[in-house]
């Protein structure tokens, strides 16, 4: 028993010391897996004080989208392996709502990620994370340590990776033709509809955005079914127009845009929002 007490005492000292360290020394967040990345993104958004005019919500397909010209007042709340629903749930819990939300519709069926919205829905858990910051994903000791020694993330040979586009696309196409959960798409669409109604009632402009993908991917059973429900539930909601020159965009697996194409699409999206600012920025 003496040993256990000693360990407990030392444990408390370590907790205090590390909490103090985090307060004094601003750490650089590092992460490895997409689960960590999602967690950090959700926690940063939940605990952050910054308010945004425009927020993009979506899946990994929206990864890296920026809005040049609106940079500081906009953010992308996308989750890899997740979907728009989680982003919408997180936004709803914030005190100040954005002026516009760009809602990616490509992976409409992805359910709410309970883990990511836990701090937003559970005040006690949120307080724990707030007062004991080492519990937040970005402050985990190994993430902090790696952040100090490593500056590069995920060194993949993209030149090699691009050789496998057809392989990756074939795999994704097979998946998207095989696993079509119509019920799940419908359920998610219904839930998203409730959020959309809520935000619109609170003066937030919603834009539905279907991100460009390879034409073969757009015709998978899953995609066709998704488009059907978008049409069914969100007919009256504004749309981001289709990208004018689809041939100029390239993906690395049929779904995800490569960096240069992402930049092109970001510019297109930002230009559209700036051009239509009167529709969503009521302070003008």
């Amino acid at each position: 028993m003496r040993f256990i007490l000693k360990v407990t005492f030392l444990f408390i000292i370590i907790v205090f010391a590390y909490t103090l360290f985090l307060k004094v020394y601003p750490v650089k967040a590092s992460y490895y897996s997409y689960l960590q990345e999602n967690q950090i993104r959700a926690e940063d958004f939940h605990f952050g004080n910054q308010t945004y005019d425009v927020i993009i919500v979506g899946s990994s397909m929206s990864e890296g989208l920026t809005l040049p010209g609106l940079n500081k007042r906009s953010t992308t709340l996308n989750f890899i392996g997740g979907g728009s629903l989680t982003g919408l749930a997180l936004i709803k819990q914030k005190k100040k709502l954005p002026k516009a939300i760009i809602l990616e519709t490509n992976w409409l069926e992805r359910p709410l990620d309970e883990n990511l919205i836990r701090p937003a829905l559970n005040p006690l858990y949120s307080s724990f994370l707030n007062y004991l910051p080492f519990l937040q994903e970005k402050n985990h000791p190994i993430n902090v340590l790696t952040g100090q020694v490593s500056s590069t993330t995920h060194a993949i040979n993209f030149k090699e990776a691009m050789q496998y586009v057809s392989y990756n696309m074939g795999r994704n196409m097979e998946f998207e033709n095989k696993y079509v959960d119509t019920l799940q798409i419908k359920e998610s669409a219904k839930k998203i509809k409730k959020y959309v109604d809520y935000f619109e009632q609170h003066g937030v402009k919603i834009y539905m955005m279907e991100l460009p993908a390879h034409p073969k991917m757009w015709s998978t059973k899953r995609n066709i079914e998704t488009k059907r429900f978008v049409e069914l539930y969100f007919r009256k909601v504004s749309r981001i127009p289709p990208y004018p020159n689809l041939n100029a965009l390239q993906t690395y697996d049929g779904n995800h845009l490569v960096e240069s194409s992402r930049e092109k699409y970001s510019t297109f999206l930002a230009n559209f929002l700036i051009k239509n600012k009167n529709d969503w920025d009521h302070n003008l």
Partner: protein
Amino acid sequence: MPFLVIVSTYFYGTAYWKATAILIISILVNTIVSYKVSNDKKQNVKAWLYLGIAFNLGTLFFFKYIKLFTLTFVDSRLYTQPFFHFLILVPLPIGVSFFTFEGISLLVDSYKQKEVRGIIKNQSFYSHFVRSSLFISFFPHLIAGPILKADQFIPQIGIKYFKNINWEKVFKQLILGYFLKMVVADNLKDITADLIYPFEIYHPVTLIILLFGYSIQIFADFAGYSLIALGLASLLGYDLINNFNFPYISKSFSEFWTRWHISLSRWLKEYLYIPLGGNRKGVFRTYFNLFIVMFLGGLWHGATWNFALWGTIHGLALAIERLINNYFKPNNTTWYKALKVILVFTVVSFAWLFFKLLTIHEIVNFYKALAPAYWHSFTLSNREWYVFFYCLPVLFYYILYLLRNRYTLTINKLEPFLYAVLLFLILSNAGFSGNFIYFRF
């Protein structure tokens, strides 16, 4: 005791409630047969024993291997027929490999071990039923071992007292077990998930680092689970066999198998290798026995030919090692020993690929991606750093073990601090929880 049996069965049911019936039938049959083996007339005993063993092997074969055999030996055009379709869809009850082996141990030990037979003979059938049920279903070991031997567990069954619990031992086992599982294995799991085709997009150094990371992950996952099982059993007053004894410092493959999954190695040795004749029936039979035990040991892990190949590699390594040892005198210098440790660790790690990758095709592609053509300039990214940082505690754990005799006092002084750090890391750095790798066996 009955309470512990009910709790254990309930615990099993929470994982897969439909399989509870299989567990209960297994307990009932093994109880009846072991009772008969201990109490029936001498001329009937062997028949009961063989019947019981056949039941356990039949259960294991039906639930674990029928699908593999159907897919391998039946024409694929017949799969749509109801009978073959049924065989392909037979579910795998969690822990079936463990409780059938324990059933065999109960039968064989009640036949061979005087102490076990004596205990059973002095019991009423009901009392024997409760004890056998506890032996097979005892929840800390039920799903992924350690595989218990009846002669070591049954004599321990009895009333336990709170004052006899060694709290420090329980605390250490649980902290270390949870640390290995939640911090090391669960974090490495998300990094080694990158070991998927196409491998060519990674530098060969990255692939090797990921493979070594997987080697540490599988150790941390299984040794962590075993320590948690040991801790929980100690909390209830039972001592289970220590399943791992720092396997990655083994200087030979035979030593590796005395340190890795010790309860399985012991089971295979006592109930398969020795009954087959062990090393008592000439050189050829010894090699053959080694080979067949490792082949079946591999297949025990999973019903795919991957696992059989994995076992075959270990069987071959053991046979080659034995052959070399017969002709060469061992060199006892430290450098030579270190070299042997590295060699065994490397071969064992490369063999883990058969665990990690699903098809032989993928394994071949992995090796292809190590070809000289891919050895271009290498940049250290956070992927490699993460593998390093999560492997570091395991390395440190091994170093402390190696230095335990030379620096006993210092290590003892440091111990509370080290456990406090482990506790802190469990709280602050646990990975996203994943299933135990050995649950699928």
